[in-house]
């Protein structure tokens, strides 16, 4: 089975939020529900002043703290390495939200459960790519199989040295960042 991930080139992000709304439509989310965010990072004084836009979403950790704490087993990892929530067994206790060190989960108030990025697995299983990847005007995201050394994402990570967020936590995320 493949093991899917996304590599994000933050030097190309313009903070346009196209990924956010593409995701909202794909997943039929309300305007105030989102599976991805953009953080603004300001640094330095002119002329070395710089601002970066950092797209954030569920990291689909190999060693997912959210999954470990789930009392009903609603959070699970699919065969493709995608961390998902089973809405039928989720009781909305929010332990997973507390456990996620990246704070990438949200409450679905309509159903009283917790939701998150699904890596558009239904599109991927049909041979597509996640909506946030397809729509991006600056091609910030590279999607693919981390286990295939010839995939675009594996080559991107190998050539840029992209790193996951907070590797020190031992969560083994599958979202990688190129920061400079």
């Amino acid at each position, binding site marked *: 089975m493949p093991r899917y991930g996304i590599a994000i080139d933050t030097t*190309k992000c313009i903070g346009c*939020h196209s990924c956010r709304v593409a995701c909202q439509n794909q997943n039929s989310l309300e305007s105030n529900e989102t599976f991805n965010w953009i953080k603004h990072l300001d640094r330095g*004084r002119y002329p070395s002043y710089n601002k970066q836009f950092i797209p954030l979403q569920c990291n689909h950790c190999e060693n997912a703290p959210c999954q470990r704490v789930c009392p009903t087993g609603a959070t699970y990892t699919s065969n493709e390495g995608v961390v998902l929530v089973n*809405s039928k067994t989720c009781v909305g206790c929010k332990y997973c939200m507390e456990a996620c060190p990246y704070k990438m989960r949200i409450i679905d108030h309509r159903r009283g*459960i917790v939701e998150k990025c699904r890596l558009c697995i239904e599109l991927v299983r049909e041979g597509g790519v996640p909506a946030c990847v397809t729509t991006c005007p*600056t*091609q910030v995201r590279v999607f693919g199989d981390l286990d295939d050394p010839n995939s675009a994402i594996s080559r991107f990570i190998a050539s840029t040295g992209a790193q996951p967020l907070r590797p020190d936590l031992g969560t083994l995320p599958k979202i990688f960042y190129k920061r400079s």
Partner: protein
Amino acid sequence: MNRSGITRRKFIIGSAVGGASLVASNYLDFESWATTTESSKDVKVTPTLCDGCGNWCAIKVYTRGKRIWKAEGIPIAGNNLGRICSKGHALLHEVYNKDRIKSPLKRTGSNKFEPISWEQAYREIGQKVGEIKTTHGPGSFFWLQYPEGNAGLCSRFMNALGSPNVFSHASTCFLPRNIGWWVTTGSAKPEHDLEHTRFAVFLGRNIAAGLRLRQLSDISKAKDQGARFVAIDPRFSELAAYTHQWIQIRPGTDLALMLAIANTLIAENLYQKDFVDKYSQGFEELAQSVNGYTPEWAEQKSGVPREVITKLAHDLAAAAPQAFIHRGYHGALGTQYKNSFQLVRAVACVNGLLGNFNQRGGLYDPPKVKLGKLDPQKFPEIQELSDFMVDGSGANDRYPLTPVGLGLTHAIPELALEGKLKAGFVYHNNPLRTCPNPARVIEGYRKLDLLVSFDYVLSETASLAHYILPESYYLERDDVVHTNHCYNSKQVAIRQPVIEPLYDTKPMVTILTELAKSLGIGNSFNFTLEDYNRAALAPLGITLERLKQEGVIDLGGNWEPGPPHFKTPSGKFEFVSSTLKDLNLPAVPEWEDPLVVPDQGDIHSFRLIHGKQAHHTHAKTINQEYLKEISVLNDMTRVWIHPDRANALGIKDGDCMTISNDVGKGRARALVTEGIHSDCVFLPSSYGVYSKKLHTAFGYGISYNDFLPTYFEPVLGHCMSNEIIVRVEKTPA
């Protein structure tokens, strides 16, 4: 919990039922959702064109049942290459906005409307138009539009009615940019071969917010190939985050920088001699004119260090002809400063010195598609009426270079107050929000005997109209064949309905043909949109059916580099413009001061500048809740101010500031950032909706137009929208 037999989960679900039932129709839980694309038989895909801005990106819209679900870009489309921005996604929801107008309306009082039938509306408008025509003549009519697909038919309508007064938003947007390029190169909007360039400079132009998806995509590819990009802007724009370098410049002084770059290229013999010798005229005069504009001089004006200016010139020369200064839009080269027209000329001339015209990685004239016309045997040809307009556009003694059909939108209120304009039709435009000094604009528009709007919501302008004939939303209508996707090849595209109209609305072309009958000009509109579109496609050898199936068709005819051709009077690239010379205007670029400057001795005095954000277009998207939510979540109505200036005023990040001048007063919270020049404050331009009938956006943020005096720049008449001085102070608690 268990004792009572209610689990926590049941309790939560029970309490959520009220909310869930409201949204159940378009919400799927993960299990059903994960299989839905395979199993759903009711998913339909319709290619069409977005209406989020002027790019008209080609999209495929998915419906589930009768409801719109999502969209994807069409990969071959020249303007968007399969990408869609946040507006393109979010506006799919706008068709369901509860603020939509559901039938023709007649205004019965202040913000009071009654629904009427189309027949009654046509009849009453016809009667009113007849009266005004008899009393004041057809020259008292105007049409104002955002010029896009249907614009040609709207001009035909006005010409048939007997009025040359067709306005666009140009005088508040791009006017100097078009004219400056046109008099220099014969082409008003050269395109950029960004994908193959080696070094490019963006001067105030922020394509990462005034979004151009194609150009952004091309930069991404060029960056991977090692090209370098520089953003020059008073603030750290979204584009600055995307380029390799940000150069901060004092607002209104870009012209000094360009003159100094021309000076350096010439003084150091770094220009492309071959191009200059073969294809240009007036090089000697340019050399003489820029002789004194040294980098040292420009540093004084612009605050950009001389070594930075020299290095820019060297980097451009080293990469030439695969190098350029971007042709600009509203930012810096548009209707922003008194010297913007000179600036466009200077930018064009620097590009001339780089010899990049029709070169790989340079500038080029995009291929054009020649569409067919209606058969004149069956459908009467309508002549254009006049070569000048009521505002003086095109008139030798007023604004000879300002084209008829663009005109000066912000002159309309003045002309109405003077009694020269009596009746107006406003289409895809909202002058009450997008023109300077709204109080005066309202006063002017109130004077009109007849105002007809075609809006789909009660915008500020529609709220003042006597009649509203609601056009169907873009997802519900057909429009004329479109050629905007000609980027580096010839393409045609078409908009078509994705769903049936939800309300009693009609496509614009239908409204025009029906209204024409009641105005006594029905014989000029004796055709249908289908007739018109078939005639347009006839010479291309493709059928309307095929175009509707594919959405966009590439006809080949790709742009190829080669010797340049210039459609100027001399047939050459004109460093000395013969057009400007004939009009006794400065024929070579020279320094000109901005109209106003902040008072250096007053800690409260700032220039107010403005610009777009990527998720908004003009004033027309902030009422969309998915887009407003992005602004709210990221606190994006804040006004940018430099830390040193903020400190002096006791303002901390997030504090409320009062901004005022003779024109207006408003409040906004501060974004204290190093990313802004200390001479100015920056206000994002899409806020400040004051129509109470736009329920999502009403009262959210402020607009730069609330502070902009009504100016007419002497040569072209544009609005000089960055010539604003304001007083900034901390709002007392």
